[in-house]
């Protein structure tokens, strides 16, 4: 699935549509400990995290993630959205929890 195709699903809202592209979501990763994520997440992943501060953008850029998905409609800091837009990292919000997001992505064929 491509990142911009995620917008077709009403339960996923992209907060910075100008950052969207047809970059492929290659895989998924879940985690909130930034060092752990940086050490282990693969490039091209969709990253599910409850962290919402601006440093998640730095992690996503350095790892070359395809997008960030924020579960349970956790509130994003404005600074994070601005930075993510600047850096071309799409961020999605969803009412689903982290487990449900992963199960859903898995059902779409993302491994």
């Amino acid at each position, binding site marked *: 699935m491509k990142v911009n195709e995620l917008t077709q699903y009403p339960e996923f809202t992209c907060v910075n549509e100008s950052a969207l592209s047809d970059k492929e979501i290659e895989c998924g990763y879940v985690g909130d400990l930034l060092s752990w994520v940086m050490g282990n997440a693969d490039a091209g992943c969709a990253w599910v995290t409850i962290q919402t501060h601006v440093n998640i953008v730095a992690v996503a850029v350095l790892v*070359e993630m395809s997008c960030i998905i924020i579960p349970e409609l956790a509130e994003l800091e404005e600074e994070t959205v601005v930075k993510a837009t600047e850096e071309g990292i799409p961020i999605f919000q969803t009412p689903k929890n982290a487990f449900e997001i992963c199960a859903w992505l898995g059902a779409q064929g993302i491994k």
Partner: protein
Amino acid sequence: MGYNMTFDVESGDFATAGQASRKIKKKLQDLGISSKIIRRIAIAGYEGEMNLAIHSDGGQILLDAEPGVITLRLEDTGPGIGNVDLAMTEGWSTASDSVREMGFGAGMGLPNMRNNADGFEITSRPGVGTKIKMTFDL
């Protein structure tokens, strides 16, 4: 090649931390270095940058790109590390609760740096400061 850059990192500056690693990454991309090596340098650089912001009184990141090897140095002016072996242990951290809530303080930064670099040297003196030298073979 033969290229170098220096970045200042202020103590407590979480919001802009990551900036130096991003600039280093862009520069290395311009130099045509392989993306696998860039990723390792970027991860090590970001861990170092965050440590300067979180744990140090402020410091610098120095990048040196030469034919065959990239060197990344982190130098700060204190407070230094009392027990470097302990600090190098995975999971060991003195980060505050507020820093942990942000997802830092897993105690994996120094081990991540060592694992990503081909060469890793750390020297630290309490009251003086910490110096880390990482090399990446091209």
